[in-house]
């Protein structure tokens, strides 16, 4: 547990010291949504929802990609021996989940500002956005580890990840449709638990498989 906290603190410190990456992603979020606004104006709810989650997907790939790519092979080996693979992976998962939740909320604000506000139930949507940010970041964190191992960048991550992320995205779209009108979606809790179940599965797989990935 201590290891994990220290590693997260290290990632945070890196973020604070080399602010260009953080602001880089922030700028990416802002400019993507601005371009979208120029192209689409203020679309109707269904399009709004679809666009929002697609943008989250691309933000996630870019935000998470650097988590393994920025570390040199030697430094990785150092963390691996000092903290162990499992703690290392868990710290990355947690850190990226936090980062992605933050980015999702920023992009939600920008969406509200530029693309109009079709939300009837904003608090519920914020909950979904946090859950969605976590779910997306978990899958892509592990894929970033794979891509880093193959010495490839974000492009390979997208190829590997997009087919795998489809169930999460579909569940998220389903869920968030309920935030646009006062309709009662049958089995909303079931969908939420399914998504949480998938997240747990991804975390378990990541923890089990990561040590094999980094063994040399």
């Amino acid at each position: 547990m201590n290891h994990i906290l220290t590693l997260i603190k290290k990632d945070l410190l890196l973020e604070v010291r080399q602010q260009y990456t953080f602001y880089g992603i922030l700028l990416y979020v802002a400019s993507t949504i601005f371009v979208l606004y120029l192209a689409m104006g203020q679309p109707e709810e269904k399009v709004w929802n679809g666009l929002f989650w697609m943008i989250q997907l691309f933000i996630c790939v870019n935000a998470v990609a650097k988590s393994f790519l920025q570390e040199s092979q030697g430094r990785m080996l150092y963390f691996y021996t000092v903290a162990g693979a499992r703690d290392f992976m868990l710290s990355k998962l947690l850190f990226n989940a936090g980062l992605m939740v933050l980015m999702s909320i920023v992009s939600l604000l920008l969406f509200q500002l530029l693309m109009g506000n079709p939300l009837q139930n904003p608090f519920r949507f914020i909950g979904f956005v946090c859950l969605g940010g976590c779910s997306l970041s978990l899958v892509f964190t592990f894929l970033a580890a794979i891509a880093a191992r193959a010495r490839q960048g974000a492009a390979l991550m997208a190829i590997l990840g997009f087919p795998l992320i489809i169930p999460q995205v579909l569940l998220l779209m389903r869920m968030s449709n309920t935030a646009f009108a006062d309709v009662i979606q049958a089995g909303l809790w079931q969908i939420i638990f399914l998504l949480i179940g998938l997240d747990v599965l991804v975390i378990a797989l990541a923890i089990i498989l990561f040590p094999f990935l980094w063994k040399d």
Partner: protein
Amino acid sequence: MRQYWWKILSIVLLIYTFIAGLLIPLPYETAYASSNLYESMRNFFFHVPMWFSQLALITVSLFYSIKYLRNPNPTYDIYATEFARTGTVLGVLGLITGAIWAQYTWGAAWSNDPKQIGAAIALLIYVAYFVLRNSMPDMDKRGRVAAVYNIFAYFIYIPMILILPRLTESLHPGGKGSEGNPGLGGSSLDATMRLVFWPGVLGWILLSTWISTLRLRVRLLEEKKHSA
């Protein structure tokens, strides 16, 4: 001494399903009275077993990937790749036979049916698997990274094909209303059809295993030649 009885069995079963599948009378109720299937229902004997064999082969591929991680023997890696490759080919065949059939029966080759989406995702996953493999020149690392992706993808893919059909309505049998299910619509199969269908499934699985083993022999010989 090579075991070849199962190859003969595969041929016999496939000849049987091809003849019986095209000749047996179809159940009147499901094929004519309550649907627009008519004779196209016979596609069931050929299209569905392909998906069964694809699932069987990618499961074998998963098995060898796990074995490779436990014991990094390059042969296991080649096994995992070749089974995944044949599985993907069968998946493509399943998708094509399904699309041709859907063109006539559902009116469009592609209608965003959850099972069609699942099929397309499976193909994307395994194509990505091959792209990932080819992006790494180092054999040892390639084997390990590819095995990790294979296991990760499989365990996400299987829940996905269990969840997707329940989320949206499906045109596939058993997908009426919101009570879609990932498997077959059990009640639409009558006893005669079962007698043709299940041998067909076994026949296709055996045939695809045969194809994989042929490819494996070639690959292993190539490997031997390179290392010698």
